């Protein structure tokens, strides 16, 4: 216990002893985590936007003019069973006429003496939490159904939005991975510099019979403290920036940035893992 307390206090004291290198490492962690945080917030909000757009995706199916309302009901039931279809709404011939009249002010039956409008159906697609939404197989299945005359959909637009989203996600993941890698290198090199400047200490510790763990521990703890400070600063910045941006946005638009603040604990975890990996890597090269 005494040994652990000593090592812990040494780790803390090292922060003061190695001020300049500590500042560099904390600043790198702070910058990296702030960028990762911004990427995460951007991803979360883009996802919400995509979800909203997906909820608006719909397919309009027009049946043949000879199809009766009863037949249409059967076809709609078939459509509802297609995988990926969330809901279906049948618009009967009479309902279609009402919609037409309300939109154009004319009653078609007055001069045609019959209702020429076919029954139709609005199909809503199931929302997917991840991955690209594939609409084409659903369209294909609908077209195969007997009695279906025309299928209207926003397939190309949906495809474009989904592709953009998928590429964006991939890009964001790549950037985050690169940032993590660079941070590991920076922390590792910073600690390597610290260790190099502490050659005398390591030599003295080896001389008096310190184990490798004993020599290593203050440097590892120092790395963890640096990571925690960097993560705390990044969290404060992200929180302040989101609150400030929402304040501004609320005056201009109805859109606000939504953040699940639990992700900040992930930032701390990432920082600690990065620092542990970085410092262990640096020290093990020195204590061979």
């Amino acid at each position, binding site marked *: 216990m005494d040994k652990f307390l000593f090592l812990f206090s040494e780790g803390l004291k090292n922060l003061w002893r190695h001020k300049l290198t500590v500042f560099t490492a904390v600043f790198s962690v702070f910058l990296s985590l702030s960028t990762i945080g911004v990427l995460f917030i951007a991803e979360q909000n883009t996802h919400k936007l995509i979800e909203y757009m997906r909820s608006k995706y719909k397919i309009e199916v027009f049946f043949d003019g000879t199809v009766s309302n009863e037949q249409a009901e059967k076809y709609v039931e078939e459509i509802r069973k297609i995988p990926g279809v969330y809901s279906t709404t049948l618009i009967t011939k009479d309902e279609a006429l009402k919609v037409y009249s309300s939109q154009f002010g004319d009653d078609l039956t007055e001069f045609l003496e019959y209702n020429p409008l076919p029954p139709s159906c609005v199909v809503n697609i199931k929302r997917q939490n991840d991955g690209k939404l594939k609409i084409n197989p659903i369209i294909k299945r609908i077209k195969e159904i007997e009695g279906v005359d025309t299928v209207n959909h926003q397939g190309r637009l949906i495809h474009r939005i989904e592709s953009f989203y998928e590429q964006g996600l991939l890009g964001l993941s790549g950037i985050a991975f690169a940032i993590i890698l660079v941070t590991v290198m920076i922390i590792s090199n910073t600690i390597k510099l610290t260790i190099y400047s502490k050659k005398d200490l390591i030599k*003295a*510790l*080896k*001389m*008096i*019979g310190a184990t490798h763990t*004993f020599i290593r521990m203050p440097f590892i703890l120092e790395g963890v403290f640096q990571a925690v400070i960097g993560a705390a600063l990044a969290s404060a910045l992200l929180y302040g920036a989101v609150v400030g941006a929402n304040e501004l946005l609320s005056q201009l638009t109805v859109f606000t940035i939504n953040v699940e603040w639990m992700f900040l604990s992930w930032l701390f975890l990432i920082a600690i893992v990065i620092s542990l990996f970085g410092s262990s890597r640096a020290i093990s090269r020195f204590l061979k």
Partner: protein
Amino acid sequence: MIRLKNVSYTYRKGFGLANIDLSIEDGEFVFLIGPTGSGKTTLLRLMHMDIFPESGKVTIGEFDSDTIKKRKIPTLRRSIGLISQSYHLLDDRNLFENVALPLHVIGHNQNEISEAVEEALDEVGLAGLDDHFPQELSGGEQQRACLARALIKDPEIILADEPTGNLDPVTSFDLVKLLEEINREGTTVFMASHNYSLIKSRNHRIVEIHDGKLRSA
């Protein structure tokens, strides 16, 4: 007991030690004399198991160079007090913290450490200088601090590598007398020096090393 049996060691550049046989009994005080570059430090590094012989065997108490496991080396080093010409004191720690370091390594509590540091500093004549930093001490005081750090863990052996190398003759003489006092309490002392005039009048065994080979002195 320290025993070197037919020990050889060669550095990459070619020089080193050849066929060294040496035996030092518990409680003995032995001087190692030889010119600069003759192999004194190499011999001490072998005894400290900082390097290992190419052939032959070094035995320090229960540990020997053939069979010692890497993780056991710190245990061996805790039974040896090493002092050298370059003091290896840590500039960012005061005298108290420097001397206390070996006890932190072993895991003593703060009260035991405070008591032992005061005792060790008193023994080497540095009482009252606890809060001084190495750069505020003279060469002689720094070497005494180094000795206090070696003594605090109550070592069975003291290996001294040219401890008087940077000291004036009077301070050097005082340091040798201090090592003799420690030796009288039962600690084995093996001191390397190139200053024959300093050690010739002391009544201890002297071994001479020259070009990596031992000679009787």
